[in-house]
């Protein structure tokens, strides 16, 4: 998907419009109102790896972990799902830089990743097992579960209390998934995530222009006005 160049005026206009709408309605800024007022939903970038079930699962995870609020749009509007899809379809998903020769042993956590699965294979088996667990426990796949159940499942999953019946080790998959959500939120927009540099703006990271020799003193202990640019903006 061509990187939609950041259109400041459009962003400002929509921001102004949304705040005006909130004011006129006079209601507290409930999540739904915010969602509606937030920037129009970004057109889908399509999927090169995830099938419909998997895409729904990933969208639900990234939108739950990175909800929409005044700091940033929700995860899928920032393209974190697209980032994960492209990573899995690409070399990293196929096991680039991963030693994949047997024999295969479980080992202990301090010996790191030992599964005979490439990241793409782990996601495929992992999402199927996660959804199977959710259907067994909450009688619905993850993306159909209400927010409270999603949170309950994610907390259990991240703390090793979830076991995938004849699936991959649950926690190994969670650790990889969580790292990819973070990467999707803060890597350069080139990779499909961090669209409009929303992740960088949230924390004030100035992006690729980094000639700070003079700024060190000029901005010591002062807020640096970051209007981040990505690699594409300078290419």
């Amino acid at each position, binding site marked *: 998907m061509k990187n939609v160049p950041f259109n400041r005026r459009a962003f400002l206009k929509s921001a102004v419009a949304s705040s005006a709408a909130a004011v006129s309605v006079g209601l507290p800024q409930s999540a739904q109102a915010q969602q509606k007022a937030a920037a129009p939903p970004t057109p889908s970038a399509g999927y090169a790896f995830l099938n419909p079930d998997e895409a729904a699962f990933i969208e639900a995870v990234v939108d739950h972990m990175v909800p929409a609020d005044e700091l940033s749009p929700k995860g899928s509007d920032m393209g974190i799902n697209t980032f994960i899809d492209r990573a899995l379809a690409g070399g990293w998903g196929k096991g680039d830089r991963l030693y994949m020769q047997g024999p295969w042993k479980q080992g202990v956590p301090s010996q790191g990743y030992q599964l005979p699965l490439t990241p793409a294979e782990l996601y495929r088996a992992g999402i199927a097992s996660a959804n199977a667990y959710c259907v067994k426990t909450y009688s619905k796949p993850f993306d159909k579960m209400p927010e409270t159940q999603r949170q309950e499942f994610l907390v259990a999953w991240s703390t090793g209390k979830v076991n995938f019946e004849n699936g991959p080790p649950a926690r190994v998959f969670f650790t990889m998934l969580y790292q990819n959500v973070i990467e999707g939120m803060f890597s350069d927009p080139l990779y499909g995530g961090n669209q409009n540099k929303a992740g960088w703006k949230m924390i004030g990271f100035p992006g690729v*222009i980094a*000639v*700070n*020799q*003079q*700024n060190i003193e000029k901005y010591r202990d002062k807020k640096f006005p970051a209007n981040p*640019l990505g690699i594409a*903006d*300078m*290419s």
Partner: protein
Amino acid sequence: MTTRKVFFAAALAVIAHAASAQGDPKRGEKVFEECRACHAIEKGSNGVGPSLHGVIGRRAAELDDFRYSPAFKRANITWTRQNLDAFLADPQKLVPANRMPYAGMPEAKDRADVIEYMQRILK
């Protein structure tokens, strides 16, 4: 604004301009050290940055044997002394999103001296 005042302001501008013209090339060579890591002064030898040979009065992104960033190609400016001075003061301001990894020379005196040096040496 009475004409006198106007005349007086214009004169000031000229002098200021002239002053900057008399930068000290000797000191300018020393200041130019900042640039030598990436720019050569010999014709045709490009490194991280393009060769600065004959840069004064040249249009930006003119050498065809150097891969300029789009920012310079879009800039369509000529390296007059004035543009050079503005650029060296704050490179990202004059040519936003350019790739030069150099924060600039805040001191006007440094800029005047180095431009004077470049004027002489980079024929």
